[in-house]
C-alpha cells in the first residue's frame, strides 16, 4: 500500500517537476480518481507551459482557485498585450495597475514614450512649420524663376527675332561679351564666332582704326564723368560680312560700368542701313548733280567751291576758275531743236570732265554755262586748259536725226583766285567778266581777268 502511495507521489512530483512527465503505471491508472487528478494536473501543466511560452490564446476547462489565478494572469497578460497595441496605435493614456513593479515600469515607459513622442511631435511641428516656410519660399522662388524664365524667353525671343543686333563690348579687351543671334542675318557670322574674335575682325581696317580711337576717347570721357550712361551715341559703321562684302550699319551705343566686374562696357544696338545709305547717297547725288550732264550742279559747286577756296587760303596754294558758255546756244536750240541742244550741253560737259583732274571741280551752273575750279592751278596753266577746251569743243560734231551736222563753239573767262581776300562769289564775278569780254571779242576764245 505504501509502495503504491509512493508511486503515486513520485508520479505526481515528476508530473510537477520533470521536463517530460512520465507515463502512469497501470495500477494507478486503474484508480479513477487518481487518474482524473493526474489528468487535471497534466492539463494545468500544459496550460502553464502554454502561457509561459507566450501562447495566450490557450484555454483550460479546469476550474478552481489555482486555475483561476492562472487565468487571471492570462487575462492580465492579454490585457497588457491589448494595451501595448493601443500604445503602438498612439493611445498613451494606457496604464497598468495590477502587475506590481512591472506596472510601475510599464507606466514609466509609457509616460516616457508619450513625453518623447510629444517632444518629437513638437519638433515635427516645428520642422513642418520650417518645411512649410521653405515650401512657400521654394514656391515663391519657383514663381519668380518662372517669371524670370518667361521674361528671359520674351527677351530671347525678342533679341533672336529682331533684325537689330544687340551687343555688349568690353572696352578693355575690345571683345564682345554678348552678341544677339540676329548678327548672323546681318553679317553671316554666328554670335560665337563674333565673341571669340576681337573687335577688329568685325570692321574694315579703316573703320577698326577709327572706332578703336573713338571707343578709347569715349571711355576716357566716361571715366572722367564728361560722358554718362544716359547719353546715346549714334554712328555709321562699315562692317565686314562673312562673304567678304561690307555691310553699312548704324550703331546706337551708350557707355555703362558693369556693376559686377567694374569694367566699362559699350551697350549697343546695330542695324543694317545699307539700303537707307544707298538711298541717301542717291538723294545726295541727285541733290548735288546736274541730271542732264551728270556733273555737279550749281548748288554743289557753290558749296564745294567755297570750301576749296578756304582750303587754298589755309595752304597758300593757287586756284583758278574757268567760266565757260556755249556760243549762240539759242540758235542751236532754235535750229536743231532742244534735244540737240541738250546733246551739245552733254558733249561740252564730257569735254570738261576729260580735261579735269580728280581734284578739280566742274559744274553746270546755268543753261549752257559751266564752271571749272582748277585746284593748285595758276592763271597761265588755267589759260592752257582753256585753250585746250576751246579746241576740243570746236572739234565736236553732232548729227541730228536727219543727219544734219551740228557744230558749235564756246567762250571762256579765266580768273585766278586771290586767296587771302577773295570769296568764290568774287572769283566768279571776275571770271564772268572775263567771259563777257571773250564773248564781246568775237567768241570761241578765252579771256583772262588780269
Amino acid at each position: 500500500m505504501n509502495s503504491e502511495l509512493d508511486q503515486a507521489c513520485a508520479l505526481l512530483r515528476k508530473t510537477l517537476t520533470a521536463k517530460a512527465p512520465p507515463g502512469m503505471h497501470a495500477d494507478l491508472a486503474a484508480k479513477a480518481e487518481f487518474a482524473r487528478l493526474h489528468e487535471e494536473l497534466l492539463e494545468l501543466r500544459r496550460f502553464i507551459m502554454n502561457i509561459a511560452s507566450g501562447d495566450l490564446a490557450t484555454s483550460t476547462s479546469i476550474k478552481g482557485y489555482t486555475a483561476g489565478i492562472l487565468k487571471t494572469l492570462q487575462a492580465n497578460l492579454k490585457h497588457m498585450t491589448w494595451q501595448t497595441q493601443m500604445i503602438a496605435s498612439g493611445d498613451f493614456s494606457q496604464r497598468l495597475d495590477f502587475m506590481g513593479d512591472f506596472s510601475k515600469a510599464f507606466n514609466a515607459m509609457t509616460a516616457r514614450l508619450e513625453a518623447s513622442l510629444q517632444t518629437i511631435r513638437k519638433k515635427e511641428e516645428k520642422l513642418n512649420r520650417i518645411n512649410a516656410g521653405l515650401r512657400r519660399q521654394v514656391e515663391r522662388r519657383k514663381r519668380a524663376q518662372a517669371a524670370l524664365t518667361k521674361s528671359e524667353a520674351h527677351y530671347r525671343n525678342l533679341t533672336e527675332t529682331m533684325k537689330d543686333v544687340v551687343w555688349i563690348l568690353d572696352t578693355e579687351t575690345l571683345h564682345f561679351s554678348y552678341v544677339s543671334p540676329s548678327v548672323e542675318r546681318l553679317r553671316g557670322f554666328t554670335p560665337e564666332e563674333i565673341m571669340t574674335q576681337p573687335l577688329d575682325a568685325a570692321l574694315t581696317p579703316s573703320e577698326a582704326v577709327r572706332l578703336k580711337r573713338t571707343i578709347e576717347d569715349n571711355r576716357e570721357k566716361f571715366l572722367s564723368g564728361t560722358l554718362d550712361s544716359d547719353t546715346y551715341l549714334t554712328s555709321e559703321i562699315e562692317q565686314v560680312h562673312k562673304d567678304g562684302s561690307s555691310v553699312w550699319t548704324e550703331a546706337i551705343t551708350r557707355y555703362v560700368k558693369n556693376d559686377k566686374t567694374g569694367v566699362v562696357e559699350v551697350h549697343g544696338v546695330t542695324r543694317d542701313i545699307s539700303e537707307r545709305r544707298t538711298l541717301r547717297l542717291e538723294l545726295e547725288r541727285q541733290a548735288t548733280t546736274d541730271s542732264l550732264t551728270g556733273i555737279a550742279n550749281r548748288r554743289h559747286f557753290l558749296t564745294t567751291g567755297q570750301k576749296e577756296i578756304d582750303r587754298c587760303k589755309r595752304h597758300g596754294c593757287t586756284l583758278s576758275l574757268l567760266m565757260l558758255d556755249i556760243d549762240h546756244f539759242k540758235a542751236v536750240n532754235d535750229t536743231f531743236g532742244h534735244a540737240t541742244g541738250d546733246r551739245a550741253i552733254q558733249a561740252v560737259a564730257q569735254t570738261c570732265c576729260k580735261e579735269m583732274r580728280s581734284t578739280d571741280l566742274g559744274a553746270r551752273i546755268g543753261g549752257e554755262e559751266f564752271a571749272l575750279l582748277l585746284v593748285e592751278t595758276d592763271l597761265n596753266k588755267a589759260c592752257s586748259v582753256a585753250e585746250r577746251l576751246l579746241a576740243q569743243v570746236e572739234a565736236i560734231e553732232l548729227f541730228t536725226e536727219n543727219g544734219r551736222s551740228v557744230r558749235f563753239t564756246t567762250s571762256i573767262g579765266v580768273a585766278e583766285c586771290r586767296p587771302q581776300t577773295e570769296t568764290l562769289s568774287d572769283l566768279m564775278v571776275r571770271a564772268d567778266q572775263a567771259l563777257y569780254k571773250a564773248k564781246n571779242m568775237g567768241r570761241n576764245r578765252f579771256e583772262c581777268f588780269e
Partner: protein
Amino acid sequence: MPDRKYRFSWDLIGDIELGRPNLGPLMRIEVYRLMQFAFRDVLESHYGTAQTDALFYEAGKLAGTAFYNRFCSGITDLNEFVRTLQEILRELGIGIMRVESADEEKGSFVITMSEDLDCSGLPELDYEVCVYDEGFIAGLMEGFTGRKFKVKEVDCWCTGDRTCRFTAQAEEKA
C-alpha cells in the same frame, strides 16, 4: 403593455445628494447582492432558471444602454470609449474592466471584469452567475457600435476563476 408602472428612466435613480445628505451615495455590496440574489430566488421560483437568466440579461442590457447614454454618448473612438468605461466602472465600484482583445471590424471583443460587483468573493458554484453583467456589456456595446451583440461569460469567480471573462460578438446583420 400600454400603461406601464415601472418603465425605466434615469430620473428613477433620484437625487441622491438631496435624499442622503448623511449617508451619501455609497452602500455596502452585501445590500446590492442581497437584493439581486433575492430577486433571482423569487424569479426563479416563479419563472424557472432559464427565464430568470433571460430576465436578468434583459435588465442588464437595459441598464447598459441607459449607462451608455448617460456616460458615454457621443464617443466614437474605441480607445476613448474603453478608457471612459474603465474610469467610470472603477469610480462607481462596479469592477475593474480590461480588454483582452478587440476587433472592431469583426465586432469581436474579449473583456474581463475583476472584482466584479456581482460575483467576486462568491462561493464556488460550478456555474457562471454574471448574467446581468452579460446584458449590461451587451447594452454598452450596442450603444457604442449600433450593432446587436451577444455577450457570454466564459469564466467567473463562481467557477473558481479570479476574473470574470466575457466574449462579446456582434450578431450578423439581418
